[in-house]
């Protein structure tokens, strides 16, 4: 129970600085990296890369120092608590992995490095701000901050039409969506008269206790406001009707950035949505759950069905990430202690399996810029046993096969949903993941069982055009084992190892993470 007045009375500045320390560290480093541009020699080498890694390390350090406390700064518009710690760590990992992937990849293009890394760092900090923000203004600001970095990074490959187009689409749609978001917050503001999330919660509670919640203007404003706000966030979470940007942006963006969007942005969006939604969950305002129920089912079904016939690995993963968003939403719908902790757990698991998959995509792109078509993966199981095995493992995790974190996450959110009796939802989700397994397995087939014979569904779907991220070079497609020789640099290896480690650990000994998630959920209401 936060008491505003008591905050106003005290010296808030140091509290404020303390509360944003982890973000601040990263921002500072981001600037340092940015300044490297002025020094020709430094910027060419790998310094920005190492610096940014270090910065993540430092910020992690600060989080560990601060963890366990609950600090709110800037008039309670920023809150640092266990909840944020959990997500900070997730986001930092996402950024860390992204940076690790970027190293070799981005050197293949003639683009300035320092800006790139500093933008990633800015992105990370913005996400952290987003998850720790406790005020609609703050939410809006950090979302915009995040999006802007994402737009730039998406279009970062200068002279690459696909990249630019992706940036364009992403930008237009993103801004469109955030317009909805802000307009939604207008209505919420109008309904409650507060921008501070906690006050909103407080207000709604009181109104609800008076039984006026579904009454008159408040109701209408709140409804419109929440729906529009939801739209704004659902866009970032890429839930079904608002998913449209996902495949294109994922496809066009440089692969590390795709990973960044898939992991970091999605987590941050989900986290803030969870935080806001948990405020209103209890007094089921115009049974908002049904809307989410619908969105969840639509997203997972659409994602899976669309993914079945994708031949481009990045697009396939994009569709699958839409489906995954659907699964994660189940946790939020399930609600309650287990639902929310399950959601967090799933998010954390999701980071590593997705990042792992993308890391391997990056690895093969580094060998051969054409290798985005799944057909090009044929036979790599034998050429690169370890990497292929890892890929298989991540795909299985995404498919939700046991001993992987994916299964534990699914199991967690599903049981939470059943606990609050969303049987049909879970059933549909399970059936979904049954046929979702097909396209993950399709990739494994390509990797390990290469031959001319047909699958149940002939892999020869409508689009056969090469979708490399470099200039099209079709004659390279013809050789059978698509991937040219090359060695995977240690950065990627580390990334893959980290992902493997966590995916396996969360699959077999999830208890630690579950406890962690529980703590963070406990602190969610102790703002």
């Amino acid at each position, binding site marked *: 129970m936060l008491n505003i007045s008591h905050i106003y009375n005290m010296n808030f500045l140091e509290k404020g600085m303390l509360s944003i320390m982890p973000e601040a560290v990263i921002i500072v480093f981001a600037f340092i990296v940015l300044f490297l541009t002025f020094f020709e020699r430094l910027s060419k080498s790998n310094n920005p890369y190492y610096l940014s890694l270090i910065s993540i390390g430092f910020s992690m350090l600060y989080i560990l120092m601060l963890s366990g406390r609950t600090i709110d700064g800037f008039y309670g518009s920023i809150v640092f608590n266990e909840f944020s710690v959990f997500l900070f760590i997730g986001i930092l990992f996402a950024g860390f992995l992204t940076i690790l992937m970027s190293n070799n990849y981005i050197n293949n293009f003639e683009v300035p490095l320092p800006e790139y890394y500093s933008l990633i760092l800015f992105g990370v900090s913005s996400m952290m701000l987003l998850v720790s923000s406790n005020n609609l203004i703050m939410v809006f600001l950090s979302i915009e901050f995040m999006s802007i970095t994402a737009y730039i990074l998406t279009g970062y490959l200068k002279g690459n039409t696909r990249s630019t187009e992706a940036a364009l689409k992403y930008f237009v749609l993103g801004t469109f*969506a955030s317009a*909805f978001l802000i307009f939604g917050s207008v209505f919420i503001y109008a309904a409650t008269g507060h921008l501070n999330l906690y006050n909103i919660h407080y207000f709604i509670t009181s109104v609800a206790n008076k039984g006026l919640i579904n009454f008159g203007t408040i109701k209408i404003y709140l409804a419109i406001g929440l729906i529009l706000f939801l739209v704004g966030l659902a866009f970032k979470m890429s839930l079904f*009707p608002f998913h449209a940007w996902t495949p294109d942006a994922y496809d066009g963006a440089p692969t590390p950035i795709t990973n960044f969007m898939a992991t970091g942005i999605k987590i941050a969006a989900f986290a803030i949505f969870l935080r806001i939604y948990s405020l209103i969950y209890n007094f089921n305002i115009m049974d908002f759950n049904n*809307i989410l129920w619908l969105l969840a089912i639509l997203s997972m079904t659409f994602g899976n069905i*669309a993914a079945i016939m994708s031949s481009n690995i990045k697009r396939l993963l994009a569709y699958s990430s839409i489906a995954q968003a659907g699964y994660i939403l189940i946790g939020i719908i399930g609600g309650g202690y287990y639902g929310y902790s399950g959601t967090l757990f799933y998010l954390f698991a999701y980071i590593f399996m997705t990042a792992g998959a993308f890391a391997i995509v990056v690895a093969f792109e580094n060998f051969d810029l054409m290798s985005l078509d799944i057909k090009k993966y044929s036979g790599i199981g034998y050429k690169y046993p370890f990497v292929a095995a890892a890929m298989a493992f991540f795909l299985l995790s995404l498919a939700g096969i046991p001993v992987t974190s994916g299964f534990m996450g699914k199991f967690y959110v599903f049981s939470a949903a059943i606990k609050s009796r969303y049987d049909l939802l879970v059933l549909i989700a399970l059936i979904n993941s049954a046929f979702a397994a097909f396209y993950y397995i399709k990739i494994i087939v390509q990797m390990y069982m290469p031959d001319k014979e047909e699958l149940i569904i002939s892999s020869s*779907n409508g689009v056969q055009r090469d979708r490399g991220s470099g200039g099209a070079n079709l004659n390279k497609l013809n050789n059978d084992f698509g991937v040219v020789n090359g060695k995977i640099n240690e950065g990627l290896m580390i990334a893959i190892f980290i992902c493997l480690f966590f995916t396996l650990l969360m699959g077999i000994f999830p208890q630690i993470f579950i406890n962690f998630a529980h703590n963070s959920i406990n602190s969610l209401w102790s703002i």
Partner: protein
Amino acid sequence: MDAKFIITWLIPLFPFAGWFLWGLFGKYFKGYSGYIASAFVVISFILSSILFFIVSYTHGFTTTLYPWIYAATFKVGVSADIDRLSVIMLVMVTGVSALVHIYSIGYMQDDKGFARYFSFLNLFVFSMIMLVIANNLLLLYVFWEAVGFCSYILIGFWYEKKSASDAGKKAFIVNRVGDFGFAIGVFLLFITTGTLNYETIFKMIPSIPTITVTIIALLLFAGAVGKSAQFPLHVWLPDAMEGPTPVSALIHAATMVTAGVYMIARFHVIFSYSQFASEVVLTIGTFTAFFAAFIALTQFDIKRIIAYSTISQLGYMFMAVGIGSYTAGMFHLISHAVFKGLLFLTAGSVMHGLAGELDLRKMGGLYSKMKTTAITFIVGGLALSGIPPFSGFFSKDAILADVYNKGFYFSWVIGEITALMTAFYIFRVIFIAFFGESNVDPKLHVHESPKIMTVPMIILASLALIIGFLGIPPFNTSVFYSFLHVDFKNAYNFAPFINNTPWYILSLISVLAGLLGIFTAYLLYIKKAINPETIKNVFKPIYTLSYNKVYIDEIYNFIIVKPVLSFSNFLWKIIDVSIIDGAVNGVASSFAFFSIKTKKIQNGMLMSYILTLTIGVVALLFYFFIR
């Protein structure tokens, strides 16, 4: 571990060991395996004779080797039930087997599967012994099937011949059909009595409603019909002649095929308790006796003729047990075992002399070339056609007399006619094969079989002379009767004697019938008084019917085999592949179809993306406002 136990279990042990040895190390023993195998069987023959005397001077007993299946309330042990019935069977089985073994040494000597042959033969003897001494239905059923398997493997002994392996398969499957009924009978018996042990069952029978007993009896009889080649399921036995001749002698004449009769005798309590079942047995027996003899009239394959005569003789036995005179049935079983074994062995010796020739039309005038064979064969023939003083006369008349005196006149008439036909067809064989002018292919040099083959034949021939006197009429005062009858004392007397015509009248009639048959054959084939061809043409339809074995095989093929196969094909091609699997793959490909359709949303046009987004928003707001 008393003497009885040891002796009892040593009897099956020896053949069992033999099976093992020849099966595994046959090739190291080379020719000796035959001698040792025979020795084993002889030993168990001696043992069973000892047992015979033990039992005949003391009383029967039960002994258990080890508990076999103990599952919940279902408890069955491997245990033997030794009484007079089983010892008689034991002596018969081991005796005939011993002779056949010895005979086979000569017959099979230059066959590459020598050891294999003897291992299977030993296995058969083992199974037959166990079948005879079993004291519970499960054990009986087990070895019931085991002997079936032995006959399968021995019929198909020369597996390179398609006909042989076909015949083996046919035998096994037809037997399975019978065993199907038998198994159901066992189940029914178990759930009604809660046990499978003979004594317990027999005690409980009177307390069971007659209808149930009848059903049980009929089901068990189905097994007997399969095993003993009675009418609907007789088709396998003639084909079984593809096997080596000693096998036919042992399995398909003397022992296995009589298991059905033995089984009914063993279960006389059940059968005698249900009159209807017994009458069914009688009817089937009577019909089969006539039917088989009718087919045998016109065949030319010497072994097949004898096979059909076996079927017909088994028909007699079933008549006997069908009217409740079990002793008579058993008596005919024993004597038939002897003379039919003899006939087969001699036939084998003929084949041996003619390099495997079976067709009557390619024989003739063999008497001069192979005297022993001829004489023994004739002895067998006389026994078969029931001419005194050969054993067949006594045993067959024992049956027919009972049939008449118990008032089953129709069956009696059929029986007599059958006797006539029997005498005719067997002497037809004798006259054509051993007398008259020779149609033998001049190239091959016909020779008498070696001693090792002829001696068993001679022994059997003399037995065929002697055995009969165990049952000197009137039968119910004879040695055999008095010995065995005690085992059937608690049979339920459902068919009392209604008139006692003195035996000699009835015997006279049947002897006359026999002589008439022989005389007809003489007229036709020696005197040539009437040309067989003319008769053939006169009775054209009947002849063809008999010649083609009444088309039973063809009928089965048409009404059973073909429909089943086509139905299975339908199941596989249509139901399995098209419908079920089609549905499965259909789901998959429908997903593919949907996938392609859904991705149309993702058409790359910014316009449409914005449109979807907006539609989403509107839809949500709409959803809210209509609520």
